[in-house]
């Protein structure tokens, strides 16, 4: 099952309102994405914690509906 880009963005923005998000659909199949996400919420926490915030915003979809989302996070 696939998840459209706009829905992924919305889920992330709901949890991380100041996020700047760029998402690429790597294969054009709504199923393999790469996302670059910047937020002040990532300042001064570890990479693991940053990625966990993104995963939590996706509410369990990661690893299920959403198979492949490569994540790069940065503070701002």
């Amino acid at each position, binding site marked *: 099952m696939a998840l459209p880009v706009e829905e992924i963005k919305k889920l992330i923005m709901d949890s991380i309102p100041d996020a700047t998000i760029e998402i690429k659909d790597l294969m054009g199949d709504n199923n393999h994405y790469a996302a670059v996400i910047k937020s002040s919420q990532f300042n001064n926490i570890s*990479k*693991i914690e940053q*990625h*966990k915030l993104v*995963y939590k915003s996706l509410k*369990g979809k*990661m*690893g299920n509906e959403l198979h*492949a989302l*490569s*994540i*790069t996070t940065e503070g701002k």
Partner: protein
Amino acid sequence: MDINKKIESLISENEVCLFMKGTADAPQCGFSMAVSNVLKHLNINFKSVNVLEDENLRQGIKDYSDWPTIPQLYVKKEFIGGCDIIKEMFEKGDLKKLFEDKKII
């Protein structure tokens, strides 16, 4: 055996332990292959655990680490990250440094 105990014994007995889909020689997912290749490139001896052989372990490791995806790398019982983090650390030279700091290499 309780799955958390099994995971704890795996990460205690193996200084570098990679939970992955497939094996180091025959990965069954691009993300698992990427991490396995990075470790090989750094000449790290590691234990690979194929989560596809054990559904309990496949879910158990996600719960244990509070991390929803596979692969997952543990070094000396510490969760280091998944594919994106490992690749990023490798590209910045931080992964080699981590192995040096933890006296693996």
